[in-house]
Each structure stands twice: as structure tokens, then as C-alpha cells.
């Protein structure tokens, strides 16, 4: 393991490695700072560009993006009260009041340092867990993978903020789309309507580019105006060092936030927003002066930002070890792995340890580099959010579609990206969570293959899913997840009735 880490470091400290990491960080900061874009869109746009690269170089670029998006989002959250990505929303509570009090520099300094430390903490957790994960994944056979895929979908649907039913429908829709094309298990093609292009199935990269990049651009077009909801051209930044020092004076807050971030990140579907809000809430609860939060308390910036960056390390655990992505970003990242001929799952950690470590090292260095670059260009990044969407939209649509075509030189990919862009926009408009559709699309093949393999192992009986402890446990957990909202409603109603009686 140490050998892999050292060779990954050596690879990164070449001119090529530094250039690609720097480019990834710059793109991540930019896409993080612009609300509505985010890491998923950035990675989707970059996939075609990585096609001709060595896997290690591609992961350096993508690692740079993943490690820097969260900090980019915190800059617009602090300076403009507009979170670049949803997890930065918790940073607005105290970051923007600090900016209003003339302490924007301190807030950004704190966010940068907390992001770096959080990112490093997340990576440390990932490195610590890899040897254990290797052992755990070896216990998993097809029934366990099938159960895990179903559990992942259920958990992600549950995390869609009150849209559980539509989250499940989106998941089923994603699975349905995943069945299109050649059926590797049974031979023959399905749901193609005789269209030759569809024989290979719906390609993940054009579909994801459509669902994220194109759908967001259509949505921005309907909204109009500037990207940030609360714009101000006055974004002066000074006294950054005050924020940096404040982080080192409050290391327990950083550790608590990072711990929450890494743990929550590893749970499929829960995501960075929950992690940063939990970190914020726990810091308020632990504070001797909770009344100061929301009025510019620097701890209110440190806690969510450390959680925000630590989550990536945690989220990579299920993605790399089991091939189960926990977020849209990770689902798209799976697309990158597949494009480079790597199959996520048990063998990935064993056979491609060096490649995995180049991603991990890139992620760690990106967290630090993002803060350094971000501090230098924070003012200009904030101004990017004041760009009129009508200039941003056609540029992003053009680059996204050229990139989609460039991947396999098939115009059908461009059409698929457009169709999924429209579907994605309709999903935004009618509150069908896209995340479950995306993850189902990615997991569909794994779920079906594991299902058929399991039934074969079980001599045609589906009871195999219930006779093996791990798969039974995972399926029971899925049932629990499905009934969680109803259970919560029952408990709330009982509590309310009890209170009324008293």
C-alpha cells in the first residue's frame, strides 16, 4: 500500500501531474463558485477530455475538481450569500454576516484552512479504511451486491428531502433506461425499437451530461438574470490570516466537522448537505454561546467547511470498494472509471491499487492547492457569479455537446445528451429527483447481472437472497428505509397526541 502511495506521489510531482492537478483545481473552484453548476457538471464536462489520457492522469484532473469544488462554493456563500453548491448553504449562516461586518477575508481564510484540513482528514480515513474494505468486499457475492444496489437506491431516494415517492419513481425510471440495449445476461437486445445506435445501450456519459449540464442550463435559461441570487460587486477581501489562525485555535471543531463529513459521506445518498448542516448544528450545540451563531461566528464557517471537504474521502469508500456511488458526483466518477476500462468493485482495490492511490493523493493535494489558489483568486471567483446566465448558458451547452460528440464521434450521443437534458429539466420542474435516476442508470447493469447470477447460484430459487446473512441484513435495511417516513409520521403523530392529552 505504501509503495502504491509513493508511486502515486511521484507521478503527481511531474510537470504533467502538477499541470493537470492545477487545471482540475482551477476548474473545480470555478464550477464550485458558480451556483447551479457544481462538481457533477464539471466532471461530466471533463469526461470526454480525459478519454485519451492515462487513467492516472485522468484521475489527477478529476481529483483536482473533486477536492476543490466545495471551497469554490464557499467563496460565493461568504461573499454573496449564494451557496455555490448546496452543501455550502450552512456556510452562508455565519459567512455572509461576517462579510457584512467587513470580515470577509477572515471568513474565507477560515473556510480555506478548514477545507484543506477536512479534505486531508477525509483522505486519511479513506486510506485507513481501504485495507478493511478489501476484506469486507471479499465477503460479498452476487446476492450481496444485488441487495446492496437496492439498498443504495432506497437510501438515496430517502435522502431527497421529502420527495421519497418521486425519488423511488426516478430510481425505477433509471433502471428502466439501464435495460435498453444488449442484454449481456441473456443475449439479444431489449427496448431498442430496432434503432441500431441503441444496441450498445444508453451511454452513461451523454446521459449524465444531459441530466446535469444541459438540464441545469435549460433551467438557468428559464430563470434568467445573473447566476447569483444576491449580487454585489463589492467583494473586498483582507485579513485572511485571522481566519487561518482561528482554525488552528479551534481544532476540535475541525475534527468534529471532518469526522461527521467523512462518516456521512460514506453513507450512500446522505450527501454533503446533510454533513455540513449536521456539523454546523453540532458546533452550535457544543458552543457556550449558541446565540452568537447566525450573526458572524467564525466557528459557523469552520465546522461546515471541514465537513464539506471531508465527505469526498468518505464517499469514495462505497464507490471504489463496492461500485455503489453515494452521490451524483460519484455516479459520474464511476462513468470515468468505466471509460478508462476499470471496473469499480472488489477487484478494483486489489488489482488497481496504484490507480486508486493516484486519485487519493490527487484528492489530498487538491484540498490544499484549492485553498492556496482559491485565496489568491477569491475576489475574481466571486465576480464570476455575477455573469449573466445568457452568456454562460450557450457557452456551456456548446462545450458540453462538442465534448459528448468527441468521445466516440457519434452524433447519436449528442441527441441522447439533448433528450436527457430535456428529461432532466422536466425532472427539476416537476420535483423528480435526478440523483436516484442517475444512480439507478449506473447500477442497473450490476443489479440485473447480480440478480441472475444469484438465482443461478440458488438453483433457480430467489430464496438465496434470504438465506445468506449479509444479503438478508441488507434487504431488511432496505425495508426499514422504505418504511422510515411512515414510521416517522407514526411517531410524530403519537407524540403530538400524547402532548395534547397532557
Amino acid at each position, binding site marked *: 500500500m505504501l509503495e502504491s502511495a509513493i508511486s502515486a506521489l511521484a507521478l503527481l510531482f511531474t510537470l504533467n501531474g502538477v499541470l493537470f492537478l492545477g487545471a482540475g483545481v482551477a476548474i473545480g473552484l470555478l464550477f464550485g463558485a458558480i451556483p447551479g453548476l457544481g462538481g457533477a457538471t464539471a466532471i461530466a464536462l471533463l469526461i470526454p477530455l480525459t478519454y485519451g489520457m492515462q487513467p492516472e492522469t485522468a484521475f489527477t484532473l478529476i481529483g483536482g475538481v473533486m477536492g476543490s469544488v466545495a471551497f469554490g462554493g464557499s467563496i460565493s456563500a461568504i461573499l454573496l450569500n449564494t451557496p455555490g453548491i448546496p452543501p455550502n448553504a450552512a456556510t452562508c449562516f455565519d459567512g455572509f454576516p461576517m462579510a457584512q461586518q467587513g470580515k470577509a477575508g477572515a471568513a474565507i481564510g477560515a473556510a480555506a484552512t478548514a477545507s484543506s484540513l477536512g479534505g486531508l482528514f477525509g483522505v486519511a480515513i479513506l486510506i485507513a479504511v481501504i485495507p478493511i474494505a478489501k476484506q469486507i468486499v471479499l465477503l460479498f457475492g452476487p446476492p450481496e451486491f444485488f441487495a446492496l444496489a437496492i439498498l443504495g437506491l432506497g437510501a438515496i431516494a430517502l435522502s431527497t428531502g421529502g420527495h421519497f415517492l418521486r425519488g423511488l419513481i426516478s430510481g425505477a425510471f433509471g433502471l428502466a433506461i439501464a*435495460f435498453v440495449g444488449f442484454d449481456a445476461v441473456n443475449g439479444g437486445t431489449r427496448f431498442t425499437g430496432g434503432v441500431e445506435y441503441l444496441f450498445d445501450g444508453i451511454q452513461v456519459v451523454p446521459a449524465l451530461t444531459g441530466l446535469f449540464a444541459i438540464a441545469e442550463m435549460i433551467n438557468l435559461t428559464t430563470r434568467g438574470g445573473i447566476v447569483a441570487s444576491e449580487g454585489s460587486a463589492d467583494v473586498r477581501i483582507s485579513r485572511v490570516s485571522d481566519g487561518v489562525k482561528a482554525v488552528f485555535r479551534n481544532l476540535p471543531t475541525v475534527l468534529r466537522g471532518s469526522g461527521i463529513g467523512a462518516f456521512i459521506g460514506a453513507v450512500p445518498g446522505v450527501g454533503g448537505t446533510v454533513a455540513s448542516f449536521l456539523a454546523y448544528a453540532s458546533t452550535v450545540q457544543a458552543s457556550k454561546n449558541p446565540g452568537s451563531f447566525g450573526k458572524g461566528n467564525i466557528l459557523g464557517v469552520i465546522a461546515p467547511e471541514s465537513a464539506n471537504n471531508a465527505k469526498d474521502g468518505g464517499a469514495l469508500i462505497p464507490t471504489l470498494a463496492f461500485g455503489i456511488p453515494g452521490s451524483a458526483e460519484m455516479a459520474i466518477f464511476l462513468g470515468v472509471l468505466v471509460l478508462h476500462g476499470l471496473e469499480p468493485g472488489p477487484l478494483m482495490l486489489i488489482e488497481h491499487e496504484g490507480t486508486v492511490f493516484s486519485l487519493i493523493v490527487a484528492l489530498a493535494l487538491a484540498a490544499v492547492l484549492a485553498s492556496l489558489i482559491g485565496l489568491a483568486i477569491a475576489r475574481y471567483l466571486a465576480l464570476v457569479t455575477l455573469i449573466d446566465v445568457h452568456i454562460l448558458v450557450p457557452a456551456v451547452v456548446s462545450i458540453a455537446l462538442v465534448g459528448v460528440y468527441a468521445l466516440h464521434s457519434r452524433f447519436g450521443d449528442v441527441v441522447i445528451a439533448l433528450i436527457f437534458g430535456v428529461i432532466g429539466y422536466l425532472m427539476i420542474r416537476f420535483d423528480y429527483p435526478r440523483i436516484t435516476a442517475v444512480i439507478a442508470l449506473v447500477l442497473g447493469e450490476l443489479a440485473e447481472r447480480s440478480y441472475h447470477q444469484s438465482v443461478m447460484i440458488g438453483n433457480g430459487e430467489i430464496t438465496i437472497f434470504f438465506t445468506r446473512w449479509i444479503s438478508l441484513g441488507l434487504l431488511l435495511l432496505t425495508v426499514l428505509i422504505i418504511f422510515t417516513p411512515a414510521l416517522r409520521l407514526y411517531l410524530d403523530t403519537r407524540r403530538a397526541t400524547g402532548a395534547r392529552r397532557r
Partner: protein
Amino acid sequence: MSAARFKAPSLVPPIAMLAFSIGFLGWAYTYGERAQQMPVLVGWVMATLCVLDVVACSGTRAGNLVRALFSGTRDDHGATKGTGTSVARSVMSILWPTAFVGLVALFGFLPVIPAYVFLFVILQGRKSIRQGLTAAAITTALVYVIFKLALRYEVYQGLVFAG
């Protein structure tokens, strides 16, 4: 606030999804026994969930109950609200990339990108001609430099110019 007072969300999306799931299910049954297993299972699950969604959007007491059961709350936290954008505006926003792809199919990316960016900026964005020209020039240059010069990718030439 009680659930009964909420304005029920539109029935059109859940009915459209239900129609899709029924169509998918019907199609799934046309395949062999093994090939149809998973699609049929997913189709039935999707159809059932869509029926529940139709009920949830019906504005009836049963609908409110379904909504509460799946959102875990009786208040409007889980109610679907949508973006509130008018249909005309949505259609217009979808038409722009659709027209772009249609024109690219005929003439290829490089001639269409500057025209698309320029027209979008001045017609949809109501910006000045100068801004439109600048945005078009920068975007086209970016695409040309990244894809054609740096990465040496093939950029689609369109049916007319492909020769």
C-alpha cells in the same frame, strides 16, 4: 397548517409517468422469460409507485395520506412545488438547445456555435450586438483551441459539409 389546505400538485406529470411505466411494462412482456424478469419487476414497481403518486396529487384525503406516509410529515414539507416557471418559458428554453442540435446535424459544430451563441445572447438575453459577438467569438475560439488544436478530437462537420 393541515395537508388538506395545500394546493394539490399537477396531475399531468404522474399520469405521464404512469403511462410510461405501463408502456414499458407492456414492452417488457414481449421478451423471453429470463430477459423479461428484471424489466417486468421494475415495471410493476414503477407502475405501482406512479399510481400512488397520482393518488398523492389528487387533492383527496387518501392523497394527503399517501403524501404524508411517503414524506413522513403532515405539513407541506414534502409537497411537490416545481419551479413555478410558465410553460411557454420552459418550451422556449428547451427549443434553444433543440434548434442548436438540429442545426449542428446539418452544418456541424464550428459554423453553428458562433451563430447560436450570438443569437442566444441578443435574442434570449436581450444584450447588445457587441456582447453577442464577443461571447460568440470567445466560445468558438475555446471550442476550437481545446478540441481541435489541443486534444485533436474530431469535431462533427454536419451532413452538409461532411461531403
